[in-house]
């Protein structure tokens, strides 16, 4: 049954609801059809918004946007999106089409989120079609055996369907693609004038993105045998120093695992596995280690140039997303061929998909072609392995890194213009470090390594073309060799049983929060900050979850005993665990865990019931996302999906460049009222959570905000006391003072942490604090007097 049929059916169903009242016969027919089409054994009543359109959740969005108002920081005063322009939108000016600056900024945010959602949806389609081709449409979904009954919480919630097979996932893609086209259409000149409508569509893009993430990941978990919700998923190696460069090395980069998995298969099938190193960068690395934990992870996205230039990789296989657009040029410098495998990232190479393997290998090994586009993963894998075996002895790990003498020579020629620094996103003092290298001492250059995001903008800017990033890598050579850590392979979903055991302590506030470190590696001061934050919160017995580049950065850190955080903390979804869920698409399991708390623990209806579940999460589930190095449009879309679900996201300072925040105003009491579902009364609950999207300047600021944003109106007094004690303790430790807003988070005296009683009571007295009740909180009037347990 095709998606067209299903969607039409959904539409018809909703259209015919009016008829139901007058025509019982129609009603019966429809019920039978529902059973047949969307989940034969799913008795759960369908909620109000299955397959929501771009306006179906607009009211919910407006509730959020009313409290968390957008604050825009335009990245450009102009709009240049049509030939009426450029238009100067400074201040209260309007463009030729009538649009103003808030509209334009929110439109750009929507564009970014459409790009992100389209990328994940296209990734999901490619992956699912590939897996259906290999395993058939009827291949059952299995993300955790008996431990995971709610296999697709986001899909159930958003679409109101319960997918059982790979084929069912393919059907959902049609809905996602339709919504993205609508969203993108809304960015055309002359569509939408209110920034809030654009923002509501941003949330919609995020929600669509989350469905795409989920179906992509559950497809690959089910079909490729990835760890299935396993808290004890194996440990694997990560870091530049873990790669055995005595062997032929294949490097895979990107996010879409079929070619990398096919490489592992080919090596296994031909008894070659021990003889070739399979290493990866970015999410393909996560996923290839989920496929085979013997594969190795080089590091996050910003390790691309440094690893390629080291010359260790003999063949580079790229799939899609976040791959540098100069990969082919860099690969040619080390004489390594590149195999492109995705139709969204053909990198200018000839399409050799139809050619004979040996002919392609010959061309690559001889160097007559710098690379090949091969759109069949199995063929790409065979070419990659054969080429690696033949070319490795020829290349002799030819690198494009300079010697110390080259650095000294470069330093002599430096014109001290500072163009390098002015191009560097992290304002690194390259000129000064280079000056110190004049006498052969490269320590100052080496000291830049940790904060360098590997972008090479310094090199592009240098008027005399000094390879400055390479100078830094050369200087930090020793450090690079010592980069050897352990990471727990991405475990995928959270088990239902884990949710049952932590549901109550999370909702009551006794586990102080779930903190998810996600996103890219555009860090202001290196990845060490992410590791530090993760360890701090795991020690405080929050549940720490991680994915993508952030999950890698957490691994690249050792304690006094030489253990990485994944060795020092368990992989369980419980207080004090550090849980690597996996790649970017595995972010679905983080949102999924919050949704499952509402559905499994609190027994809220899930099916097509988005608003109620989001309201539940916003008011009760103390979860916070931290995207310290968020860079991509995908990260923007992922964050938007969290916002619509009521989960706040903190970004690092570069995240300000997403150009708008969603900020609450704790100084406006009127913004912080909820309904008490028991009585319908409006009750002040304080600014919990205070913000929905917030950028911190420093890691200390982020950590205090994490603790604060974990507070929720539903916290019990015991839970609130625990959360407050972490907030106050971190505030004192990092800021040296008591927070000046404690009184806003104390509802009754029982909320006050015992050990801090005197200090807090003093503040309460000063601020004229009054006791308040703790309601059964909701923003939805329709839920009043319909209390469901939890």
């Amino acid at each position, binding site marked *: 049954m095709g998606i067209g049929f299903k969607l039409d059916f959904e539409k018809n169903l909703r259209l015919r609801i009016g008829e139901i009242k007058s025509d019982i016969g129609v009603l019966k027919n429809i019920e039978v059809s529902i059973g047949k089409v969307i989940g034969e054994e799913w008795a759960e009543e369908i909620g109000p918004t299955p397959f929501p359109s771009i306006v179906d959740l607009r009211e919910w969005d407006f509730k959020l946007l009313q409290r968390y*108002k957008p*604050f*825009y*920081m*335009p*990245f*450009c*005063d*102009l709009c240049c999106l049509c030939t009426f322009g450029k238009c*100067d*939108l*400074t*201040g*209260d000016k309007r463009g030729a089409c009538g649009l103003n*600056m*808030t509209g334009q900024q929110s439109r750009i945010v929507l564009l970014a989120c459409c790009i992100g959602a389209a990328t994940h949806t296209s990734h999901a389609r490619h992956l699912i079609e590939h897996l259906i081709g290999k395993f058939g449409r009827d291949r059952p979904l299995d993300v955790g055996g008996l431990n995971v009954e709610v296999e697709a919480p986001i899909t159930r919630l958003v679409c109101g369907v319960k997918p059982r097979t790979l084929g069912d996932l393919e059907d959902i893609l049609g809905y996602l693609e339709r919504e993205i086209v609508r969203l993108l259409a809304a960015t055309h000149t002359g569509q939408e004038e209110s920034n809030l409508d654009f923002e509501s569509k941003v949330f919609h893009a995020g929600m669509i993105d989350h469905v795409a993430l989920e179906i992509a990941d559950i497809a690959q978990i089910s079909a490729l045998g990835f760890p299935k919700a396993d808290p004890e998923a194996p440990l694997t190696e990560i870091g530049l120093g873990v790669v055995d460069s005595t062997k032929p090395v294949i490097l895979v980069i990107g996010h879409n695992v079929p070619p990398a998995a096919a490489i592992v298969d080919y090596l296994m099938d031909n008894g070659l596995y021990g003889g070739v190193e399979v290493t990866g960068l970015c999410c393909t690395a996560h996923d290839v280690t989920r496929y085979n934990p013997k594969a190795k992870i080089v590091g996050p996205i910003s390790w691309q140039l440094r690893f390629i230039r080291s010359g260790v990789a003999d063949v580079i296989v790229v799939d899609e997303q976040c791959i540098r657009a100069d990969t082919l040029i860099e690969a040619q410098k080390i004489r390594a061929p590149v195999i492109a495998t995705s139709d969204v990232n053909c990198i200018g190479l000839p399409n050799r998909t139809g050619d004979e393997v040996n002919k392609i290998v010959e061309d690559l090994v001889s160097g007559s072609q710098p690379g090949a586009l091969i759109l069949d993963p199995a063929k790409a894998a065979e070419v990659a392995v054969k080429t690696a075996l033949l070319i490795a002895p020829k290349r002799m790990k030819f690198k494009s890194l300079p010697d110390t003498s080259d650095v000294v020579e470069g330093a002599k020629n430096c014109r001290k213009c500072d*163009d390098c620094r*002015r*191009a560097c*996103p992290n*304002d690194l003092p390259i000129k000064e470090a280079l000056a110190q290298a004049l006498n052969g001492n490269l320590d100052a250059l080496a000291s830049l390594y940790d904060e360098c995001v590997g972008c090479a903008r310094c090199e592009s*800017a240098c008027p005399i073309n000094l390879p400055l990033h390479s100078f830094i890598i050369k200087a930090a050579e020793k450090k690079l060799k010592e980069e050897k850590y352990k990471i727990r392979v991405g475990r995928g979903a959270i088990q239902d049983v884990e949710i049952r055991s932590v549901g109550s302590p999370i909702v009551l506030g006794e586990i102080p929060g779930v903190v998810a470190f996600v996103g890219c590696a555009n860090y*202001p001061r290196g990845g060490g900050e992410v590791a530090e934050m993760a360890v701090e919160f795991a020690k405080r017995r929050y549940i720490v979850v991680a994915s993508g580049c952030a999950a890698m950065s957490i691994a690249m850190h050792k304690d006094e005993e030489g253990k990485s955080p994944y060795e020092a903390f368990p992989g369980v979804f419980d207080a004090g665990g550090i849980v690597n869920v996996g790649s970017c698409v595995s972010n679905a399991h983080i949102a999924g865990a919050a949704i499952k708390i509402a559905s499994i623990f609190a027994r809220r209806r899930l099916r097509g019931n988005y608003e109620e579940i989001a309201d539940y999460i916003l008011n009760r589930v103390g979860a916070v996302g931290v995207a310290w190095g968020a860079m991509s449009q995908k990260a923007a879309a992922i964050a938007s999906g969290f916002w619509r679900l009521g989960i706040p996201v903190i970004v690092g*300072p*570069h995240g*300000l*460049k997403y*150009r708008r*925040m969603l*900020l609450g*105003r704790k*100084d406006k009491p009127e913004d912080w009222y909820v309904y008490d579902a028991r009585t319908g009364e409006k009750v002040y609950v304080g600014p919990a959570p205070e913000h929905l999207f*917030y*950028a*911190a*300047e*420093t890691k*200390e*600021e982020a950590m*205090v*905000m994490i603790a604060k944003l974990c507070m929720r109106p539903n916290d019990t007094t015991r839970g609130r006391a625990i959360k407050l004690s972490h907030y106050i303790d971190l*505030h004192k430790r*990092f*800021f*040296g*003072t008591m927070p*000046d807003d404690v009184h806003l988070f104390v509802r009754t005296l029982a909320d006050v942490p015992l050990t801090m009683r005197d200090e807090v009571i003093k503040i309460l007295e000063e601020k004229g604090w009054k006791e308040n009740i703790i309601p059964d909180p909701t923003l939805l009037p329709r839920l009043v007097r319909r209390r469901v347990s939890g």
Partner: protein
Amino acid sequence: MVKMSTARQTEPWQSAEVPGPKKALLINDPRIVLALIKRSKNPILIVGHRAAEIELSGGQLVDYIIRLAEAANLPVVSSPSIQGEFIRRGFKRIIGMPVVDIANRLTDAGWAGLNNKGQHDLALLIGFKYYVGWLILSGLKHFSPNLKTVSLDMYYQPHASWSFPNITREEWEKNLNAIISGLG
């Protein structure tokens, strides 16, 4: 006094951060800042976390900022992570507030202001990472029509109403000293 030696001094410090048609006027004489402060009815000083990292010959930047705040009796908001630095130095009236929060409040015409005196008409910013200051000043430029902004960092910040050009630490220090003594 700042001497403008090359045009590059009035280009954005991070070279790609080009703003648009409306660019900051140049503070080529510290007396401009003195006049702006003196003319302001309700100024505010906003301090970024780098104030506790930057060393100048007379102490950390935060020491200069305290002198400036005291000389002009300016209300001061700092990044929360450095509010302790102020208190440790005996400057107790510091208010720690995330920069996005203070900027957001400054775009609200109805906000009572840091000192309950109503809308601020002048915001002086100092101690920010370049791109952080750039973006915050952009938000203020577009959405706080009644607010003049002054960047006191050592880089040209095009989104401010007034900014220093790109200058050396020595020149910067000299200018900060001139402003402080001019106020005193």
